[in-house]
């Protein structure tokens, strides 16, 4: 099992460690609900070092990126970030990822930890189509610390040298700067997986621990808490952000996953384009929707969705929502049953429990 460079910090903080793919990661420290609320009301600090980073560079870097992703990277300026699915030819999703344009002819893809090996295989296979492109796996090089929550700007600014903090406070959503955090080279982007104001900090692995400790200390009096994978999941679910392996995978396409805003069908050929064009023309069969339980019961991944006793879909994510104090979920449901406000049943341990389709995100 792999450990991030912050593993000892997690142990010292009393984290409960779980196996997550091939990684040993903190699932919680003080408790998922407490950590969740800290992120919504103050700030939370996450170790996301298990994520993979793939550097794509060379004259054909943009061409390769454009072939791989469904979103359009051609208009990006250096310093920008976009979110995109990466599809196979059949339109199934290989992974969902962030693309950073580091400079002209140089991009960094940030991919899900459990998909890194598979993604690299796919990226390298596509790279063979181009002459001038290098693909380098930087996953072992980078640690990734995510500072998320309304007070995150205050906290990160407080540990940056004067002048450097200006770049951070001016940062727009889905932008990044190459800067120094307490004298350590870092890429800091205004991105995250919580829906709150927040920053993701990429650092050389060996230098992550002091930055982690400094952020914890700087935020301590402001209500910052270290937060684990448990809170990361409830936070992203409330914002209806997809989790690969739960809500999207190789058997789902971006259009039915309600990610049409990340699919640029007008750009030149890319993996999955033909299939996605067909799907768009024919219309999707099912759609990923959000729902709230009307009765007692917590929806979970894999539970059936029913309408008048007939199975019409399946839950992909579900949990207690700490912000709403209600039970919420995402589900693929046959298109004709996906109108907002429609009553559905979730089959929980052979019992049909009432729920209602609602607008996403939940909060």
């Amino acid at each position, binding site marked *: 099992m792999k450990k991030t460079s912050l593993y000892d910090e997690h142990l010292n903080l009393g984290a409960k460690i779980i196996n997550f793919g091939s990684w040993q990661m903190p*699932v919680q420290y003080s*408790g998922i*609900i407490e950590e969740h609320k800290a992120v919504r009301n103050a700030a939370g600090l996450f170790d996301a070092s298990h994520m993979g980073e793939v550097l794509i560079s060379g004259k054909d870097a943009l061409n390769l990126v454009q072939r791989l992703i469904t979103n359009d990277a051609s208009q990006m300026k250096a310093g920008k970030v976009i979110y995109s699915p990466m599809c196979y030819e059949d339109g199934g999703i290989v992974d969902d990822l962030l693309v950073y344009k580091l400079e002209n002819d140089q991009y960094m893809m940030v991919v899900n930890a459990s998909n890194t090996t598979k993604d690299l295989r796919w990226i390298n296979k596509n790279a063979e189509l181009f002459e001038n492109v290098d693909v380098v796996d930087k996953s072992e090089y980078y640690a990734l610390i995510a500072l998320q929550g309304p007070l995150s700007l205050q906290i990160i600014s407080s540990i940056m040298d004067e002048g450097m903090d200006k770049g951070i406070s001016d940062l727009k959503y889905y932008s990044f700067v190459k800067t120094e955090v307490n004298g350590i080279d870092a890429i800091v982007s205004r991105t995250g997986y919580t829906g709150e104001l927040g920053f993701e900090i990429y650092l050389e692995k060996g230098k992550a621990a002091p930055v982690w400790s400094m952020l914890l200390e700087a935020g301590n009096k402001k209500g910052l808490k270290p937060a684990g994978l448990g809170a990361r999941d409830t936070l992203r679910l409330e914002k209806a952000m997809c989790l690969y392996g739960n809500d999207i995978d190789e058997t789902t396409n971006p259009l039915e996953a309600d990610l049409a805003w990340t699919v640029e069908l007008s750009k030149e050929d890319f993996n999955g384009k033909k299939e996605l064009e067909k799907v768009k023309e024919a219309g999707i069969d099912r759609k990923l929707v959000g729902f709230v339980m009307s009765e007692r019961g917590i929806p979970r991944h894999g539970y059936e969705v029913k309408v008048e006793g007939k199975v019409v879909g399946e839950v992909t994510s579900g*949990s*207690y929502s700490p912000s709403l104090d209600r039970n919420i979920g995402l589900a693929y449901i046959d298109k004709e049953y996906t109108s907002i406000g429609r009553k559905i049943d979730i089959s929980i341990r052979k019992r049909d429990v009432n729920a209602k389709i609602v607008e996403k995100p939940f909060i």
Partner: protein
Amino acid sequence: MSTPNDLYYTENHEWISLDGEEGVVGITEHAQEELGDIVYVELPTVDEGLDQFEEFGVIESVKAVSDVFTPVSCVVTEINESLMDQPELINEDPYGDGWLIKVELKDKSELDELMDSNEYKTFLEGE
């Protein structure tokens, strides 16, 4: 890890205490800690008969779904209604306000199959 002396324990981390013919059943400190924040509880109905080690309810934390099993054959005489609105009582006081069900035992000799506090402590160390 607290394991009160006067209780009997199962390998699935339930406990039962005995007061005359009546037993009280709950989950252990260790079990609640492993589960994390408990947010949902499903319990049987009063008068339901249960065999020893039969599943009688479900406890869900934010992340996990866990079945609970009765330590002895019994009839349910009372359920802890306050858990419906305050499932967190199980986290806060697993041996007290966080009890799950009260039962009438069918066969007290089944208690011999359970662990006492010291045995359970040793069992936890081995897990």
